[in-house]
């Protein structure tokens, strides 16, 4: 499977904040991270917040040191992601668990197919 790189930029963390300071990276280069897994803790003028990872993949590069202030919209981290996963909107179901059921059936009394 081929891979490609995608860069995550610092999002607006609320109400038009223009920058945030990296408090602690929760991942490092070369580490695999899952989507919605912990990525980085940042601090704005309003609060500290943990940003979850927007992708599943391997961290290729961090674009800021701890203690460094990053502008909203500036590159934060670059991921190496599997090509197959790139661009998909939604969650593609994997192997499905067997369907759960509670309703039990009582066959009809008439002779079916007669």
């Amino acid at each position, binding site marked *: 499977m081929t891979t490609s790189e995608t860069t995550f930029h610092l999002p607006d963390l609320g109400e038009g904040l223009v920058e945030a300071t990296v408090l602690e990276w929760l991942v490092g280069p070369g580490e695999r991270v899952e989507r919605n897994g912990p990525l980085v803790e940042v601090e704005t003028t309003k609060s500290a917040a943990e940003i979850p990872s927007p992708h599943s993949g391997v961290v290729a590069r961090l674009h800021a040191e701890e203690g460094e202030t990053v502008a909203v919209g500036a590159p934060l981290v670059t991921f190496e992601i599997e090509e197959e996963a790139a661009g998909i909107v939604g969650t593609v179901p994997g192997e499905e668990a*067997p369907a759960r059921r509670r309703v039990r059936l*009582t*066959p009809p009394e008439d002779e079916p197919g007669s």
Partner: protein
Amino acid sequence: MREALNLALDEALTEDPATLVFGEDVGRLGGVFRVTEGLQRRHGEHRVFDTPLSEAAIAGMAVGLAMNGRRPVPELQFDGFAYPAMDQIVNQIARMNYRSRGAAPMPITLRIPSFGGIQAPEHHGESLEAAFAHVPGLKVAAPSDAPDAYRLLLQSVRSDDPVVFLEPKARYWDRSPAPAGADSGGDPAVGTARVVRSGRHATLVAWGAMVHRCLQAAEAAAEDGVQLEVVDLRWLKPIDAAGLAESVRRTRRAVVVHEAPLTAGLGGEVSALITEGAFARLAAPVQRVAGFDVVYPAGPLEPQYLPTVDRILSAVQRTFG
């Protein structure tokens, strides 16, 4: 299923140089779901190409290309974004053949990743089949597994009529074996449903991903000694009224299952056709299991919205009296 669709598109592009594949991200990226992967590399940038993000323009361009002898296979990346293209679909694609008295047929296959079940954001999980099926001049297809997706897509592309081809996103990653590659021939005619599981106590009718859900329900019912027949409608227009009636005349009971909201959904049409064709044999009124009459819900609520095995089984039990 995506491999089967990819194979069908590859064959269609190979067999007719007039065939063109275009849409958002279908070229270099290979499609948001990888259905068109490798096609641009194999058939060139003039036959498989990316378009701007404008569904109306994609559908409108297909009209012009078809009028000039091409066989367009455009993709609208998601069902909810078919609405901006509706004017072109309804007023141009569906009517041009009639309007030109046959001088300008529209051999367009409009592929639309459709229905829900993948927890996508808003506008990415709609069920528009009733809207399309109501438009004179359009055919509508919805495959449920890989081999059928391959067959139906090739049939659609080869058809000189416009076909709205609804691909169930939730089944793209269905790993059932794709066809060996060669066109198997001997395909059932356009507008033919198929029995995917035989049974004798009741008939479940569905299309797209709900066929799989009905098969799960039939599996569960078998534990209770109830044999459910599952009919995959496949063609939502024209509908195989005779095939439906034939199945229901045998089982005497029918439940129609679809993801779309209940009211004015295609289940009403299917139910009416079954009643017209098999009324004398019906042991109970035809039942419908559908989505609810609400805006398609956010991802976490999908399991509550989509028909479940239990809802299907409850409807079956209602037909038993």
